[in-house]
């Protein structure tokens, strides 16, 4: 028998009265991989995470974490997971170190482990200096880091992170990404939700795009980009006068060539690298001078637009989430 996947959702649903916050979502997260749950505000990401971490009882469907059913065996699920919720849920009155001690006791860890691992985590997350100050005085970034440190105390094999970088400035964000990549390198399975396409692209092995409670696409970042449209070869000419000749040349090799009016750029639909090298060779023989030739893939932004019919909202750009605007690095008094 093969080991069960780290996380599995089968037709998972959560209805609040008439409202279907999550409506028949399925996915599988193999052990040691990163799943990115990508979706706009209100898509149902938090509700999904809450069901998988036993905080919310599904209306229908099944969730399995570490092989245990979230509804039938919540206690066993809780031994295998760490959770960093959307809002930092560290205790404001306690110091950083006391927060670690509290959660350590509640995980049932030995005091010796909590002390040693706690010190290590405080060091790793750059909180050692602030460790004995009440959390009240921490900045948003520090709280996030402490929240994550607390979740890592028990070195849970499966970690759920709900919008871990929302409201962080770009520098804190990339710092957190480094930490997450280290964790994955150490064998941790990660399920993270995000509104940032870039973040999912950066971290996730698999992306599940959710919108209005339903999965609207799933796949690797590359697969998703392919779905939004094929790659294209983009050619920039040295002389605008060559435009017509170049277009004619390219039409022999690609079904669809687009000339950007008033520019020196042509775009040709292409299957991939091979088409690009063929077109490059043709230009080489023709004597038309080129400034640039390259392969362009659609960005995840294009994917999102393609899938949902709307852009990721402007308010959801990194660090500008209105709700967590004050929670940025350096916001501490």
């Amino acid at each position, binding site marked *: 028998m093969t080991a069960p996947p780290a996380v599995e959702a089968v037709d998972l649903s959560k209805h609040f009265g008439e409202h279907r916050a999550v409506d028949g979502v399925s996915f599988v997260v193999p052990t040691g991989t990163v799943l990115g749950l990508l979706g706009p505000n209100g898509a149902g990401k938090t509700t999904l995470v809450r069901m998988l971490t*036993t905080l919310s009882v599904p209306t229908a469907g099944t969730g399995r974490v570490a092989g245990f059913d979230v509804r039938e065996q919540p206690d066993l699920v809780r031994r295998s997971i760490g959770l960093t919720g959307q809002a930092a849920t560290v205790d404001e009155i306690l110091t950083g170190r006391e927060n670690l001690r509290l959660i350590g006791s509640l995980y049932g860890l030995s005091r010796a482990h909590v002390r040693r691992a706690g010190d290590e985590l405080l060091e790793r997350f750059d909180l050692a200096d602030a460790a004995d100050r009440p959390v009240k005085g921490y900045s948003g970034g520090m709280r996030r880091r402490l929240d994550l440190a607390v979740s890592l105390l028990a*070195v849970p094999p499966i970690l759920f992170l709900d919008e871990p970088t929302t409201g962080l400035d770009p520098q804190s964000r990339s710092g957190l990404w480094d930490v997450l990549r280290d964790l994955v390198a150490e064998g941790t399975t990660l399920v993270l939700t995000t509104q940032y396409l870039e973040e999912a692209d950066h971290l996730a092995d698999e992306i599940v795009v959710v919108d209005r409670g339903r999965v609207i696409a799933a796949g690797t970042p590359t697969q998703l980009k392919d779905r939004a449209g094929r790659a294209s070869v983009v050619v920039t000419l040295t002389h605008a006068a060559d435009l017509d000749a170049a277009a004619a040349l390219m039409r022999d090799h690609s079904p669809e060539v687009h000339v950007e009016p008033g520019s020196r750029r042509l775009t040709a639909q292409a299957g991939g690298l091979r088409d690009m090298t063929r077109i490059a060779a043709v230009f080489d023989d023709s004597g038309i001078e080129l400034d640039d030739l390259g392969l362009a893939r659609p960005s995840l932004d294009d994917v999102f637009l393609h899938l949902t019919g709307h852009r990721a909202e402007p308010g959801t750009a990194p660090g500008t989430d209105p709700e967590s605007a004050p929670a940025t690095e350096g916001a501490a008094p």
Partner: protein
Amino acid sequence: MTVTQTPPRAPVRPEIRPPSLLRASSAIVWRNLVHIRRMPEMLLDVTVQSVMFVLLFAYVFGGAIAVAGASYKEFLLPGIMVQTMVFASAVVAMGLTSDLQKGIVDRFRSLPVPRSSVLVGRSISSLIHSSIGVAVMAVTGLLIGWRVRNGVVDGVLAFALLLLFGFAMIWLGIWVGSLMRTVEAVQGFMFTVMFPLTFVANTFAPPESMPAWLRTIAEWNPVSALTQACRELWGNGLPAPADAAWPLQHPVLVSVGWSLLLTAVFAPLAVAAFRRRSRD
């Protein structure tokens, strides 16, 4: 942020041994007591406010209230202590709502702790909170002339009755705390309920001086039975007059009965509301 780079290594996963109810609850109690230590203002309601009540009633209104068989100060102290204990329900409700609101309860529930530890921990720390208030009252009382006159056994029994009643009130608090969404709402609601409950009673004035209908309500108020029980056990007043309602004729027994009855009513409501609140 600067993150100390650590090279990837094989994770050493510590043994997660789900804590016993005792260990989990003690951890939560410890946390709540740290809150009280860091924010002594949390104790204001059961300390400074209560002391002000004592002084206000003992020296400002007290002269105008006639009581039989004891000085007004002696009469007053048991009433104030009962009031403090009744407010345990407000204390627990506000603490619980605040933790629910901030996601702290969710954080605890995502850990392998016994289900009940959140409520048990919260209840115990609220009882400690209220007991600190009762202790402050006792010291204040001793300073202004209140005494325990009937020996140790009866004296301790009265304190035990107070705790038992506080325990019952805590379930009311958990119920209200689980139903309401904000601390302010809890505060508003609890004070609206607590004030009539503690004033339409024999706490500050003998019910005999009230209009008949109000007197009946006051004499059947659980708060009155408990107050009368404490007065009798501590020797702070005469037994209730012969025409007083039945509960005041058997105050100790009735106090125990009320505590059990209130627990039997509110505990299931509280647990159900807390469960419902923490299902979605």
